[in-house]
């Protein structure tokens, strides 16, 4: 019997099944009715908010909410920057790691510069504050335990909570509330009642599958050849749990979940892949419950799930074929095992690749750069679309912008001026939504163009031609989508890349949180129209297809030229010209070597 499909079925079916009770739980704890606020479990939230001087919830308008969110993130930015800079002078540093700024880099001309590069700190801070976790450093080599916990892991808890909080505010606006909630209270509730308990359960489960959890320094070991080696370890289980749950993706170790300490067994792999999509899935269902539009939420969920399944299907199919470089002349048969862990195999790695790029998580359990070209196209496409479950809170908001665009066009086509959830979509909402949709392709194409045309990009790619171009394109796509996975091969730890991607990271995050908030604020004050037979229904199959069509068409039209020059030309080149294939015999190298820079 062919057991290929067992893993994907569990990897997708399990989070879908778990998202249903989790969605209910999130609705209950994150949006309690006024009479139950501060009572029962919620008293805990009051206790914490009292500690920051906000014992009573203060309702905020969308603008106040947005300001509070920005202020909080600015504080995060400053504090994290300070921690990474002052790393050597802070506690919990048993291996005497230096300042992250002391990393040094190679400039485009290939000259090594030692130390004094704050750009990497800027990049790292942007990356973690934006819930991206694009890492231009390697966790176990460059971060102390204090930085891992106090900077990285702390942000891995609060940044998804921040996305969730904004999502809550937007939903309340769509519900017609002018006061969209109290940002601080939403943050506290999200961390306390959603992120923390889920992370605890996941961390314990991971520890049970032998993921290490210790504050002891690296373990010295003597190799068979008699050499000595320091084996890095640390509070890995806790770290990996939230990395997966909060669409973070920044690994404790450089090779991320391909590393045997982050992801030792097929069981830990299953737990982690389920954790990838769980919260984004549940938040869509929460949206339906909070708005009492559960059928509409199920349609959005269905659209996202369909795209995920299509994506996963393509990667799996591609990876079950031999490595593209080995077809002509036929060197190998069987699935493409390059860049994959033997304990996971091609199917589990392919499934993970689709899930991690769909959800804007970005953790990996194999090497994305080694996927066959058609398989490698999928993660990039999912990040370009950037609405397939995507980041906690933020992903849903991205989808909302497309919902508004789809509602506008489809609404016209049924002969009414468009409305969403009974509220008229007019010039203002359309403008805000289109800006939100615009930013993503603009930063990707502009960034890629700038680096492709200059030595900043051309001298840092590992491969020539279309594959090298793909590396640049992928890095910008991953940054703009706040995903954080790396196609790698790229020497991206230098000021040009650090600053450019840092800026792109910020542009990929904050406008796409603030613009939906502004739309919700504007819709909240509109009078809702009850639906009639002439109203465009947003809760049926037809609308789902329309929405998917809009998402795919806008994605295809925005990115087709770039994708064609990168992955497509790469794929065509590999298949068509045996010379190109033999020029680059990419036989499996020792994994740690290949993955060294990975994520």
């Amino acid at each position, binding site marked *: 019997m062919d057991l290929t499909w067992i893993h994907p079925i569990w990897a997708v079916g399990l989070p879908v099944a778990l998202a249903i009770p989790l969605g209910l739980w999130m609705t209950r704890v994150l949006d309690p009715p006024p009479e139950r606020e501060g009572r029962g479990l919620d008293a805990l939230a009051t206790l914490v908010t009292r500690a920051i001087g906000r014992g009573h919830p203060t309702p905020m308008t969308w603008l106040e909410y947005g300001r509070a969110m920005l202020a909080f993130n600015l504080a995060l930015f400053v504090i994290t920057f300070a921690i990474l800079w002052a790393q050597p002078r802070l506690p919990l540093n048993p291996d005497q790691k230096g300042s992250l700024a002391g990393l040094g880099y190679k400039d485009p001309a290939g000259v090594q510069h030692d130390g004094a590069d704050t750009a990497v700190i800027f990049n790292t801070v942007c990356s973690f504050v934006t819930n991206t976790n694009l890492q231009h450093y390697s966790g176990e080599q460059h971060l102390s335990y204090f930085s891992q916990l106090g900077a990285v892991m702390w942000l891995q808890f609060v940044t998804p909570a921040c996305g969730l909080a904004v999502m809550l505010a937007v939903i309340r606006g769509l519900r017609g509330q002018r006061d969209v909630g109290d940002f601080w209270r939403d943050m506290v509730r999200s961390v306390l009642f959603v992120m923390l308990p889920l992370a605890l359960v996941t961390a314990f489960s991971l520890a049970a599958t032998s993921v290490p959890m210790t504050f002891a320094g690296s373990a010295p070991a003597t190799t068979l050849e008699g050499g000595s080696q320091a084996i890095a370890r640390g509070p890995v289980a806790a770290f990996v749990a939230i990395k997966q749950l909060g669409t973070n993706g920044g690994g404790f170790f450089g090779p991320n979940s391909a590393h045997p300490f982050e992801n030792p067994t097929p069981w830990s792999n299953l737990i982690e892949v389920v954790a990838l999509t769980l919260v984004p899935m549940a938040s869509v269902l929460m949206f339906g419950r909070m708005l009492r539009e559960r059928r509409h939420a199920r349609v959005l969920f269905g659209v996202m799930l369909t795209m995920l399944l299509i994506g996963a299907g393509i990667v799996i199919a591609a990876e079950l074929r031999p490595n593209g470089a080995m077809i002509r002349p036929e060197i190998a048969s069987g699935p493409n095992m390059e860049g994959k862990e033997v304990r996971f195999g091609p199917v589990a790695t392919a499934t993970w690749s689709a899930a991690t790029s769909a959800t804007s998580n970005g953790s990996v359990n194999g090497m994305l750069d080694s996927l066959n070209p058609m398989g490698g196209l999928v993660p990039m496409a999912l990040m370009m679309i950037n609405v397939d479950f995507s980041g906690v809170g933020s992903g849903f908001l991205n989808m909302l912008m497309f919902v508004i665009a789809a509602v*506008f066009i489809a609404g016209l086509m049924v002969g009414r001026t468009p409305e969403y959830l009974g509220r008229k979509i007019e010039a203002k909402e359309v403008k805000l939504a289109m800006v939100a949709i615009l930013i993503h392709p603009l930063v990707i194409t502009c960034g890629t163009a700038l680096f492709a045309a200059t030595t900043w990009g051309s001298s840092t790619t590992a491969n020539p031609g279309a594959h090298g171009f793909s590396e640049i394109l992928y890095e910008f796509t991953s940054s703009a989508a706040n995903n954080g996975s790396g196609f790698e091969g790229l020497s991206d730890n230098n000021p040009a890349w650090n600053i450019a991607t840092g800026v792109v990271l910020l542009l990929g995050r904050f406008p796409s949180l603030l613009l939906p908030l502004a739309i919700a604020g504007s819709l909240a004050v509109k009078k809702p129209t009850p639906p009639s037979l002439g109203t465009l229904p947003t809760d049926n199959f037809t609308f789902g297809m329309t929405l998917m069509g809009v998402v795919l068409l806008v994605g295809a039209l925005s990115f087709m030229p770039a994708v064609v020059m990168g992955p497509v*030309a790469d794929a065509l080149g590999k298949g068509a010209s045996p010379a190109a294939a033999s020029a680059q015999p990419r036989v499996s190298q020792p994994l740690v070597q290949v993955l060294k820079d990975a994520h």
Partner: protein
Amino acid sequence: MSLATLEPPPQAVESRTNRRESRRLGLFEPKLVREAVFRSFTMLDPRAQARNPVMFLVEVGAILTALVVGESLASGAPWGVVGYQGALAVLLLLTVLFANFAEALAEARGKAQARSLRDTRRLTMAARLNSHGEIEQVSSSELRAGDRVVVETGDVIPADGEVVEGAASVDESAITGESAPVIREAGGDRSGVTGGTRVLSDRIVVRVTAGPGESFLDRMIALVEGAKRQKTPNEIALAIILAAFSIIFLFVTATLYPMARYFDITLDIPTLVALLVCLIPTTIGGLLAAIGIAGMDRALQANLVAKSGKAVEVAGDVDTLLLDKTGTITLGNRRATRFTPMPGTTELELARLAALSSLADQTPEGKSVVELARNGFGLKPEAPDGSRFIEFSAQTRASGVDLPDGGSIRKGAPDTIARHALEAGLQLPKGYQAAVDAIAREGSTPLAVARDRAVVGLVTLEDILKPGIQARFERLKKMGLRVVMVTGDNPLTAASIATRAGVDDFIAQATPEAKLAYIRNEQAGGKLVAMMGDGTNDAPALAQADLGVAMNSGTQAAKEAGNMVDLDSDPTKLIEVVEIGKQLLMTRGALTTFSIANDLAKYFAVIPAMFVGFAPLASLRAIDLMGLATAGGPQSAILSAVIFNAIVIPLLIPVALKGVAYRPIGASAILRRNLFNYGLGGVVAPFIGIKLIDLAIDPILTFAGFA
């Protein structure tokens, strides 16, 4: 309710249809086409073009390409290059011209419609009354609001106004196409007269309400001619979407140049401009203005004068329709259909008495009682000499006749007649109240008849529904509209008619205040309300309604308050208004979808052609799904895409002007239909079109030596 609206004689309906037919111009009327072609060139002025950002971008692209052509000529580039670039420049210019043509043609059609109306406003002489009450002859162009003019038999009414004295029958066929004359009289709701119409009999004094250039027609003409044409809110929102797409594509194409540098490829600027023009939504961008004008044009064809483009748009959104019962839902007059005698009286006797009491009653109801007695019972009722007829009065609330023998017959509302009987100490017959209620319950109006104050029976007055009205309401319901019947009847009667006609709700014993309250209540629930009215007391409700359609026969106040005027004064027109509005919005949505969906095929044509000549990306020939870029070289593929992009604009002009057909089949079904036609069709059509164009031009290019 105006008499003219009740039941136009068949020949009048026919002549109205003919009249409308004559106003319905052929799509490409040669005269209009000539006018539009000329306008398309004058519209090239960048200042005018900037109103439409998408087409402005194309114009800039055309100029840029022309400059490159000049440079190529100067540098002595090979003929193939210059020819290709020149062809592109011409095609881009053509694209702009086609879009201009679409707008100019729609405008010209609107103007022609307006002109046919304006022709009725020939200058005439007017008999103006001066302050001393003397008549002075002035030209109609000298009339100002507030002037009073005398119009006599055979005169043309010189300006829009209100009858302040007298009554006359007026021939309004010049504006409505309706040949049957209508009554216009001072006071009441039939006082409005329109300039250009002719008084057929009698003499009236008209107070002028609009000076020259201010009448409804003038305003509408200005609207159509574009002088006052403003973008509607929905047009603005759509323009934002189109602008956003244009920006995306501007960046996508602009960044292609540096991206290609990674492969050491230098892309050709005119080709990039060609790609940009193919991608930006030129189809909808070029037709957007035409669609809007065509919407107003369609309204005008239905003899509706919209005061703004927005009014037409709002019509598509209407949720609730307030329709008057009389004349809209029912034929207007209640007719006697049955006599119900009380115990002790025969049906024949009742019929005789009822007919006697109604002999002097000149209301349609009264006449129908006599008619029923005559036709149903073979009676020839005649009042004996010396009978005295009693008119209906508000005090007695009954009418009838006092016979010379001292007997009296009365006919009136059942409770009034019953009270009279009780006051005289008489008993009410057994089952009287039950019979009254039974008649009321079936939606009819009971009338009681009494002889010498003793109740002898009841007459049933029945409201006759207009034929086919249920089917129309069924259609409205499928469109998602709620129909509300407005009537002066009591709630019981109203409920029954409402059920029979299939309306969703009714306002019984409606007063202007009740109507206004109902509208406000609906609006508070977020609904958009449309209503039609003619009287001055309708004005507040017309103003409050989101779409107020005033009848042209109505008072000036009503016409000022509404946002559309119906020249036919036809109360069922609201239904048409809604469909016109929906059609307008659907056409916009459908062509936007088509325009964007087209881009996929254009990518597949242009991108491979662009890179096929460069070694590092030559493998991209594989994505040339259409098998273009054949013997004539890659230019043929690019030119084919640009040609397709240009000619699709004039090809879709008929759709833009006629509008996408609206069918009340539910929102989801409409969406599926339009998505299939314009979404999927929009993806597929250019694949076929571009391939065909490529096949056609490839030999020409080869022959011309481009390759």
